[in-house]
C-alpha cells in the first residue's frame, strides 16, 4: 500500500502531504525533511526509486514539482509511477494545464482529487473520466451551498438571530 504522498517543490517547499499510515506531526516534519534532502539532491537522469528506512519511495518530477509516494518493499514501483502519472494527468485535466500555482491556491481541491484517486493507500479509480465526473459533481454541490451562504441576507440573518 501507499503510506504517504508528498508534493515537494524544487525549492523544498511542501505543496501537498497526505498520510495513509499514522504518523505524528513530529514524524511528518522529519520525514519531509529527510526525503526532501534525498530526493531533491538526486540528479536528473537517475532512477526514480529511493530506498528509505525499509520502505521504497517512488518519485517523479513534473516541471518544478516532485511527486513522491512511499510504498512497501514488495510493492510494484512501476505501478506507482503510473499512479503518479495518472494523478498528474487528472490534475492537468481539471485545472487545464496545471502549474504549481494552481496547486498552491487550490490546495484543498488537489486533496479532493487525490481522495477520489486513492483510498486507504490503494488505487480507487483508474479512469480519468470518472474522476473528472465525480469531482465536477461534488463541485456543483459545493457551489450551490456557497451561493446560499454568501448571500448578504443570509449573513445578516445569521448574525442577528
Amino acid at each position, binding site marked *: *500500500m501507499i503510506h504517504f504522498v508528498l508534493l515537494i517543490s524544487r525549492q523544498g*517547499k*511542501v*505543496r*501537498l*502531504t497526505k498520510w*495513509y499510515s*499514522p504518523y*505524528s*506531526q513530529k514524524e*511528518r*516534519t522529519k520525514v519531509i525533511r529527510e526525503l526532501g534532502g534525498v530526493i531533491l539532491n538526486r*540528479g536528473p*537522469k*537517475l*532512477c*526514480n*526509486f*529511493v*530506498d528509505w528506512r525499509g520502505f521504497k519511495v517512488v518519485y517523479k518530477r513534473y516541471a518544478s514539482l516532485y511527486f513522491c509516494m512511499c510504498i*512497501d518493499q*514488495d510493492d*510494484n*514501483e*512501476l*505501478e506507482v*509511477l*503510473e499512479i503518479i502519472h495518472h494523478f498528474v494527468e487528472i490534475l492537468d485535466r481539471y485545472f487545464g494545464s496545471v502549474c504549481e500555482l494552481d496547486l*498552491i*491556491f487550490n*490546495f*484543498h481541491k488537489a*486533496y*479532493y482529487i487525490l*481522495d477520489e484517486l486513492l*483510498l*486507504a493507500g*490503494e*488505487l*480507487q*479509480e*483508474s*479512469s480519468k473520466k*470518472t474522476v473528472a465526473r*465525480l469531482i465536477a*459533481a*461534488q463541485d456543483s*454541490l*459545493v457551489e450551490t*451551498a*456557497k451561493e*446560499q*451562504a*454568501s448571500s448578504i441576507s443570509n*449573513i*445578516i440573518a*445569521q*448574525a442577528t438571530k
Partner: protein
Amino acid sequence: MSGPSLMDSLFQRTLEDLIKGLRQQLIGEQAFISKALEEIRKEIKSTDLSTKSTALLKLCYLSNLHFHDMSFAAFHALEVLSSPRFSHKKIAYHAISLSFHDSTPVLLLITNHLRKDLTSTNEFEVSLSLQCLSRIANVDLARDLTPEVFTLLSSNKLYVRKRAVAVVLRVFEKYPDSVRVCFKRLVENLENYDPQILSAVVGVFSELACKDPRSYLPLAPEFYKILVDSKSNWISIKVLKIFAKLAPLEPRLANRVVEPICYLMRKTGAKSLLFECVRTVVTSFSEYESAVRLAVGKIREFMVDEDPNLKYLGLHALSIVASKHLWVVSENKEVVIKSLSDPDPNIKIESLRLVMAMVSEHNVAEISKVLVNYALKSDPLFCNEILGSILSTCSRNVYEIIVDFDWYVSLLGEMSRIPHCQMGEEIENQLVDIGLRVKDVRLELVRVARDLLIDPALLGNSFLHRVLSAAAWVSGEYVEFSRNPLELMEALLQPRTSLLPPSIMAIYIQSAFKVLVFCLHTCFVRGGSTAGVSASASYESFDDLSVENGAGSTVAHGQTCTSAPITNESIVNLLKLVELALSPLLGSHDVEVQERARNLLGFVDLIKLEALNSSGQEENDSEQKGVEATKIIRMVHDAFSKELGPVSLSAQGKVPVPDGLTLNENLGDLETICSDIELPSSNTFSFGYPSEEKDVSSFSNLQIKEDSGQSNESTSLLAEHRKRHGLYYLPSGKSEVISNDYPPANDPALQGDNNDTASDLVKLTAESLVPKRKPNHSKPRPVVVKLDEADEKPVAVKHPESRDDSLSGAVLDILFGSEDILPTSSRSNLPSSNRKGKEKQHMITQVESKENVVGDGNSSSRRRKDHSHGKERRHRKKNAEERNETDRKEKESSSNHPRRQKSRQRAEEPLKVPPQTSVIPDFLL
C-alpha cells in the same frame, strides 16, 4: 472576551487571501502565520458555520503545509461536521482526517456523525465518511460502524461499494471480529464483473495475504479465475502479488499458476506487469526451471535497458534470484560489474550487493581486489559502502570464506589506507579478532600493524585512529613476532601520537609497556646471565638458536627473530626514549593516560639503575641489584606473556551454580576463600598455558627452582584462576597436544557438552609448534578459533502480531464455515479426550508458552488476548486433501524450528496422534 462580530464574518480573510498574504510576505512568514492563527482562533469560535468552516480550512492549510498544530480545533471540526451543507462537511472531514489520531479526546463523539453520513442518501457524503473512517478508525469506531460498512458492501451504487470494500481492510485491521460479519460479502464481491470493484477487492486481499497468506488458500480458485480472465493490468499485478504469497504454501497451486504467469510474461506489453511477473517467478516459483529462465531473460532485457528505472529493477530482481540460483548472477557478471560505475548511487549499491553475492572462497581475493580499486576511484559514500560490504562479507560466519589470512590481513591494512575510508571501527574489530582467533597469521598481522604504526602521516587522519589502536594493541600483544621491537617502540612513542584521542593514547602506552618488557626480558633475562635460570625455554619454538647455554654466557643477544640485536646500549636508549616521551603525559588530564604513563615510568625507574650499571660493567658488584631487577622484569613479563583468548559470550551462563551456594550472601568469610587461593600447587598451571609454545615441564621446573616463588606469583594466580574457572577460558589446544598428566578436567562445560562443536574449538595443530616464518600460499586454511554458541547467529524469532493472529483466526473461521462457534470459555476448557476419534475435525490449538523468560512485559497483553483467541478452533474440513496438506506443513514447520519457545504458538495437529503429545507448535503463523 467577545466573540467574533458580524464585521468579522463579513470581512473574514478567505483561504485565498491567506495564501496570497503568505506569498507576499510583507511582514515575514512567521509573523504573518502567527497573526493568521490568532484570527483563526477567534473565527473558529463563531456561531456562523460558514465563518467557522473557512477558518477551519485555513487552519488545515497551515497545519498541512506549515506544520502548525491544529489539535485545538478538534471539537470545532466536529461542530462543522454537523452542518447540513455538503461544502462544510467536506472541509470538516478533510480537517478530521488530517488531524485526528487515536488519542484525540473527541474521537468518541464522532461515531454518530459518521453513522449518519454512512447511511446518507447522498453518495458523496457516504464516500466522505468512508474516507474519514479509513483514516481515523480505532477499535471502537471499527466495532460500532461494522454494521454500516457491512450494508454498504452490497450497496447498489458502485461508487459507494468500491469505497466500502477498500475501507473494510482498515476495519478488519482494527477490529478482527468484524471479519465474521463482513468477510462473506467481501468474497462475494470477488465475483463482481465491474473492474473497479474487482480492483478494490483484490487490493484488499493482496494486503491481507501479505500478513497471513495461509488463511486465504481456500480462495485460490477465485484468484486463479481472475488471473486468467483479467484484462486490467492493475488487477493482474495485485493478483500476482497474492499468488506470490500463496504459491510457496501449496505446490499444487504453484503448478497450476506458473503456466498462466509465464503466458502473461510473454504476452504483456506493460513493463509494470512484466516486472511483477518476473518478481513473482523469482521469489515464489524459483524451482520451476523454465519459468526462471524466461524471467532471467526478461531481467537481462531490463538490465541493459537505457531507462535507469528498468536497470535498477533488473538488478534488484537479479539479487532476488541470486539467493537461489547463483548461476544467473555469474551469467550476467559483465553487466553487473559495469553497473558498478553507473552514475546512479542506487544502481551502484544494488550491483555491489550482487557482486558480494558472487563471492566465494575461490574468488574472494580477486573480487576484493577489483572492488578496492573501485573504492579508490569512487566518491566517499560509495567507497565506504564498498569497504563495508567487503568487511562484512569476509567476516561472515567467523571468516568462513577466508583461506589465506595473510592476504586478508594485508588487505585490511590496505583498506585502512584508502583516503575516504571511514570503516575504522570495523577494521579495528577484525584486526583484533583475527589476532585472537588465528594463531598462524600473527606474524603477518604484526608486520601489517607495524607498517601502520610507523607511518606518521596516518596519525593525522581521525578516521584511522581506531585502526591504529588495533595495530598498537596487536603489536604489543604479539611483540615476540616483531622483527624489530626497538623500531616498534619508536613508532609507538613518536611525537605525533599526541594527535590521538586519550583512549587510544592509553592503548599506545600499554603496548609500549609490553614491548619494553619484552626487550628487557630478551636482553637481561634470556640473554643476560644474572638470573641463571633457563627461562628462555618459553621462547624456544621461535628461537633460532638454542639458548640452553648455561650461566655466564653473554652471547645470546638478539636470539629471537629480531633483526636488530638488542644490546644494553639500545636498552639504555630505549629507557631514555620512554622517559622523554612519557614525562609530559604525567600531567595528562585523562586519568587512563596519566595512570598508564605513570606505571610505565615507574617501571622504568625500577629498571634503570640496573640497566645503566650493566651497561657500564658487567656482572660485578651490582649483582645483587641486578637480580632484583631481573626478578621484576621476569615477573612483569610473565604477567604479559599470558595469552588472552576469546571468551564465549555464554561462558558465564555455562557455570552451574553449585548446591548450597548463595550468591547474595555477605562475603563474611572472605579470608578463608583467600587463603584457599594462596595455595598454588606447583603443577597447577601446567595446563593453564594456552597455545603459546611453552615447554610446560621446564617451566614448572623453573617454578620449583625459584625458591621465592614470588616472581611467578602473578602467573600462578592466573593459572589458579583458570583452574577454578576454566570454563570461562577458551580451552587451550596445548593441553591436548602436550603430554600432560593432568587432563583438562577444568573444562566441565566442554566435557559435559561433548558435542562436535567442542572438538571444533581449538585444535592446536602440530604445525603451529613450528611456526612458519614465510607462509607459503598453498598451505591449508589455518585454524580459526570459534566459540560454540557465541558465534552462532542469533535466530530472529518473529513474534506474529496479535492483530494478524486474531484476524487470520477469524478469517479461517469464516472460510471453513464453522457455524458452531462455541463460546470462548467452553472451548478453552474442552477436555482433550473429546477430540479423539473425531475424524473429520481439524484442530488448531493455540498454546501459550509459559516460559516467559524474557518477554514478561508482553504477558499481560497476551493473557488478555488469550481470553478471546487462545482457544481451540475446530473446523470441519471440506475435503481430505486439505487436511493432508496441513499435515505436511505442520511437519515441515516443526522440523524447521525445533527449539524455539516463547513465541506464540499455534498447533495444527493431525488427528491420529493422541492429543497429549500432539500439540506440535506451528510457527508459520
